[in-house]
């Protein structure tokens, strides 16, 4: 029954055997021959344009050792290239989780940095962006101990499964890239500082208008933004120093319309909350009223400031995309946004008062 080996099979087999000689001989390197920096810092160097700092965990037999390396050069690529030249293993930016920009860089323009990150195929566009107003090398060095123990301090700080809270904005590379090109949406970036004992201190958020950081908002204002964005997992609001409530549900309805060329927006926000803490006697009605007043007040203050900066971090412009001609959208930030009338109607309802009756003392 020998039908002979088909010719096709022979040639396929030959091709496969030849392919088998390839592994190891071209660009593929095993994971233990790569170093995987997790954090990159970008700041202005002395004389040179860029100073690039990398935090590189290097696994050892017993514990992970962290190295901080930096180089200065005219371009990011050149600086990275110098670092690569000096490392014994291949430097792979595949696991770059965080890019920390110095405030000076962020205030000037982040365009070329973001475009580099998007253009280079190495850096994932889901990497986080952050800003610091302290020395970057110092920041990376201060977290060294924790990284050596766990390997992932920064990642935990922004990770929703780990240390993230609604007070911390999440700004990823792709969002920054979107911000560069979007007419109707801006973003906010977390500002961090080194703190004692290898911790990171979160000091507030930077408002990024297109490619520049134009102002700052407080953590409380960030919480409000995150509630509006329905991203409020465990958000806690203090009401009049008498009670703390935690938001469990936020329903936001936007009603945008154009009246005589002027954009108007009515926002209905229904907040359900659970009481966390009370001081003295306070009734549910009081809490509701205070909460509504607080949120609405904070919101208007924030909007006034943002309108002045022409930075649309809430993305209100998105709501008017269908109502304005495409050509006009270009002028959203400069012409329409400052004229935007916003009416915010907040309705607070108490879900429950915890395991105690309210006012029961």
């Amino acid at each position, binding site marked *: *029954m020998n*039908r002979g080996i*088909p010719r096709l*099979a022979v040639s396929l087999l030959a091709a*496969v055997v030849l*392919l*088998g000689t*390839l*592994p*190891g001989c071209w660009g*593929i*390197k*095993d*994971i*233990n021959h*790569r170093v*995987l920096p*997790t954090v990159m810092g970008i700041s202005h160097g002395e004389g040179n344009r860029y100073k690039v700092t990398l935090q590189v*965990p290097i*696994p*050892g*037999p017993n514990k*992970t050792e962290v190295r901080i390396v930096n180089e200065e050069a005219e371009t990011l690529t050149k600086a990275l290239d110098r670092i690569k030249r000096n490392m014994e293993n291949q430097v*792979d930016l*595949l*696991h770059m*989780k965080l890019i920390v920009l110095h405030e000076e860089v962020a205030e000037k323009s982040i365009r070329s940095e973001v475009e580099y990150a998007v253009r280079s195929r190495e850096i*994932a566009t889901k990497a986080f962006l952050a800003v610091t107003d302290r020395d970057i090398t110092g920041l990376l060095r201060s977290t060294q101990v924790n990284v050596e123990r766990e*390997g*992932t301090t920064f*990642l935990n700080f922004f990770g929703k499964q780990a240390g993230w809270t609604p007070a911390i904005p999440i700004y990823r590379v792709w969002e920054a890239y979107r911000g560069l090109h979007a007419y109707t949406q801006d973003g906010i970036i977390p500002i961090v500082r080194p703190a004692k004992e290898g911790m990171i201190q979160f000091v507030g958020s930077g408002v990024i208008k297109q490619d520049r950081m134009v102002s700052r908002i407080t953590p409380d204002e960030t919480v409000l933004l995150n509630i509006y964005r329905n991203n409020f997992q465990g958000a806690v609001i203090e009401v009049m120093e008498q009670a703390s409530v935690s938001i469990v549900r936020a329903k936001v309805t936007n009603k945008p319309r154009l009246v005589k060329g002027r954009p108007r927006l009515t926002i209905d926000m229904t907040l359900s909350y659970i009481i966390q803490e009370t001081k003295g006697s306070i009734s549910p009605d009081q809490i509701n009223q205070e909460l509504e007043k607080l949120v609405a007040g904070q919101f208007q203050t924030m909007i006034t400031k943002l309108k002045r900066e022409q930075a649309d971090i809430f993305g209100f412009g998105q709501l008017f995309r269908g109502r304005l001609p495409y050509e006009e959208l270009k002028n959203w930030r400069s012409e329409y946004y400052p004229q935007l009338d916003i009416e915010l109607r907040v309705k607070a309802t108490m879900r429950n008062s915890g395991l105690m009756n309210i006012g029961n003392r």
Partner: protein
Amino acid sequence: MKEWLQELQQVKEQQSDFTLFPMKLGSVSVYVGGFRSLVDMPQTLFQLQEMASACPEGMAGLSLRLGGERIPTLPEAFLALAKGKLLIVPEDGGEGMAVPPVSRKIYRGVEESANESVVLGPLDAFNESLDVNIGILRSRMNSRFLQHESFSVGSVQVHEISLFYLEGRVHRSLLRKVRDQLTQIRDQEFGCLQEFFILMGGRSWSLIPTALTTELPAQAVYYLKQGRVVLLLSGLPFALVLPKLWTDSFFLATDREFPYLVLIFMRILRILAFFLAIALPGLYVALISVNPDLLRVQLALSVAESRLGVPYPAMVEMLFVLLIVELILEASLRLPKSIGPAITMVGGIIVGQALVEARLVSNLLIIVVAASTIANFVVISVQTSFTLRLLKYFLLLFAGIYGIFGIFAGLFVLGFYMSQVSFYGIPFVSLWKKEEASDG
């Protein structure tokens, strides 16, 4: 017509276990011949004497009395002898007849199956005797619709093949094609199952065998009821089910003894195991050397740590350990049952522990190989698990070159391959359907 006796005398001289002697059955003088190794002579002769005691009229009467079968030609007589029949030839020559004797018990009894284990459900399995197998099948089925057709294939070595189907349920065009094929290959010679599959229309380079083998009568009955065709071959302790479909590697008839949710769970588990068995080694190589960006950074670091000091690239490392595992598997098939566990110990301790401690391979690799090997044997049919052992190298190669993309490309190629296979007009990658009305 003395030539029959002469020929038989000649056989007696050549074959030492052949006996031929004159005796008187009733009033007829005959010669009785048969193989002592196949026929229990004393018992048979005793019975023949009893049955023929009051038989007055010649050969015709004797034949009627003993239930003999007329044998017109000598070659047929030899075939009947080889099959273990007793040959009775009249003293004066003339046509002989074959009588079913008391056979020697040269088959093992009905036992539990050796390769397919059953949790809930009937435990008995087919054995080597065709008659016993037919009996098992009939007693399991208990249906007047069960049809049985007999074929013999081969000219030198003759194989008795029994074709079973369920009247009214069977896929008629399938039955017709199988029947035609069996008639066509009447004179073809085959020595092993692979050759038989090729005779039955399979391809010699095919990864997927033409027929499904099962040792369990319960399985055979299940397939019969579905409308498939079951073949029993003399000397083979399992039934061949035609056609084979992809679902047969995952769906077991005795699954139905369990609650429905459990059944679904088990079947999903088996399908999952199929993919794990073929993809895990490839996935390891892809993640370690081509696409480490897909690992979480924590995992990437701990994997990198476990690979510290490993001298070979991931691909070589993987091939090295897979080779050892294949050797262990192959050795434990060959080993006597009493030594088998020792090899398992050696395999587990030496391969697992020592390889890692010697820093030849990484910890993760051992986990991956173990998981893949275990998953390999979760799928039901023995044939499939052997095919899977081969397929994982195919995906490993793709993964080593193209990474994750390669694994998916490999799976696609595999999908294309499987979907072009069909048996008797029934695609391999299809769910079994009752025959369409227009068919047949």
